């Protein structure tokens, strides 16, 4: 049976349509939900989407960025004001996927995908859901429960200090490949020591997670091999990496500290 497409002028109207029809799914860029339909998911029969302008806006002002949930990875990668995020946007798929895949969709991407959401987690982004701010960490934790079916209008975050945002993705195939492990970090330094660190992992659990033990261990330390040693020792604390076709859980746990070390030590 074919699938229907319903397009609404606002996200709110699309939300009402989704609430009224259990057999409907929200359609963003199509890289997740159309793929699901192509794979034979018969759990839905209608695509619902919205044409609201705010979904494709990028606003960077007063030290803060707000990105519509419908903005594609390709647009972020070429947005001069978001240059620091380009490596994270370019980590998603090949050129065709990046022309389609959206910021909002990436928040729902299952392992081993969702590299951009890892960056958003390190940036401590806030999501606009029904006009209410929701921390991306809370959203990801409740993605299948309290926030199941949520419609994200935009993501916003404070622009990190220059050079403080770090991103790395390890994959078996270059330049494009699904993630073995993805790490994003915002590391701020003052007087030669780390004043604050937010570290986020992809593919070290069933969704992006923060690494609080690492963050604590980095506080007050220098970004030297000696300074980060304690952080590396607890790199896998709190993780539960999956085993899939890309890598085993064991392998992910073994290589995580290696990539974290490379990321944290200044070139």
């Amino acid at each position, binding site marked *: *049976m*074919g*699938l*229907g*497409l319903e397009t609404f002028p606002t996200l709110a109207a699309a939300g009402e349509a989704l609430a009224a029809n259990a057999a409907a799914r929200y*359609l963003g*860029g*199509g*890289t997740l939900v*159309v*793929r699901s*339909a*192509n*794979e034979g998911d018969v759990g839905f029969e*209608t*695509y619902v989407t919205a044409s609201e302008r705010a979904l494709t806006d990028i606003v960077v002002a007063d030290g803060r960025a707000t990105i519509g949930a419908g903005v594609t990875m*390709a647009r972020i990668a070429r947005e001069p004001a978001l240059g620091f995020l380009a490596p994270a946007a370019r980590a998603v*798929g*090949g*050129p*065709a*996927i990046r*022309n*389609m895949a959206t910021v909002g969709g990436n928040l729902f991407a299952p392992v081993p995908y969702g590299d951009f959401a890892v960056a958003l987690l390190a940036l401590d982004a806030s999501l606009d859901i029904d006009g209410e701010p929701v921390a991306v960490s809370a959203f990801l934790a409740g993605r299948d429960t309290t926030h199941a079916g949520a419609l994200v209008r935009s993501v916003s975050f404070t622009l990190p200090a220059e050079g403080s945002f770090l991103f790395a993705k390890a994959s078996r195939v270059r*330049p*494009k490949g699904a993630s073995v492990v993805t790490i994003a970090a915002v590391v701020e330094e003052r007087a030669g020591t780390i004043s604050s660190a937010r570290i986020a992992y992809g593919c070290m659990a069933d969704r992006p997670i923060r690494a609080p033990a690492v963050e604590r261990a980095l506080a007050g330390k220098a970004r030297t091999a000696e300074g980060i040693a304690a952080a590396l020792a607890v790199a896998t604390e709190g993780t539960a990496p999956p085993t899939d076709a890309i890598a085993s859980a064991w392998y992910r746990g073994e290589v995580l500290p290696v990539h974290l070390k490379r990321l944290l030590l200044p070139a």
Partner: protein
Amino acid sequence: MKKVPVQFTLNGEEKAEFVESGVTLLKALREKIGDTSVKAGCQQGTCGSCAVIVDGELRLSCLTLAERCGGAAIETTGGLAHGEVLHPLQRAFNEGFATQCGFCTPGMIMAAKALLDHNPQPSREDVVEAISGNICRCTGYEPIIQAILAAARANSLSAA
């Protein structure tokens, strides 16, 4: 399933068709319009064999709904040659043995065209990046990379 009207240009030619609501651009192109130059591979967004150019951007037709292409300008490999005269990319693929089984070729060529349209003189790294969403299981990629670089050189010579 209800049918909806869709109108777009395909390789510069106006097309207007009634398609099933929710049908992919891939299916509409192949089964409704008859452009079988677009290949149905994995249909998961992984292989790139269905890649087409929509309004100047490379997209995967297997994950794009035809209804969302209303008013768009769509380019496929089927529209590249002018009669017997091959497009420089097609010629370079042919002369450089960049095609073996041929299944990935239409997607590869459209990915390459999307690159050359925006960056006529790409580096090898640019080419590798441009085809990074396209899988070839025959050639080992090197002949494809060389063919795209050769087409870029041919373009620059003809423009000089």
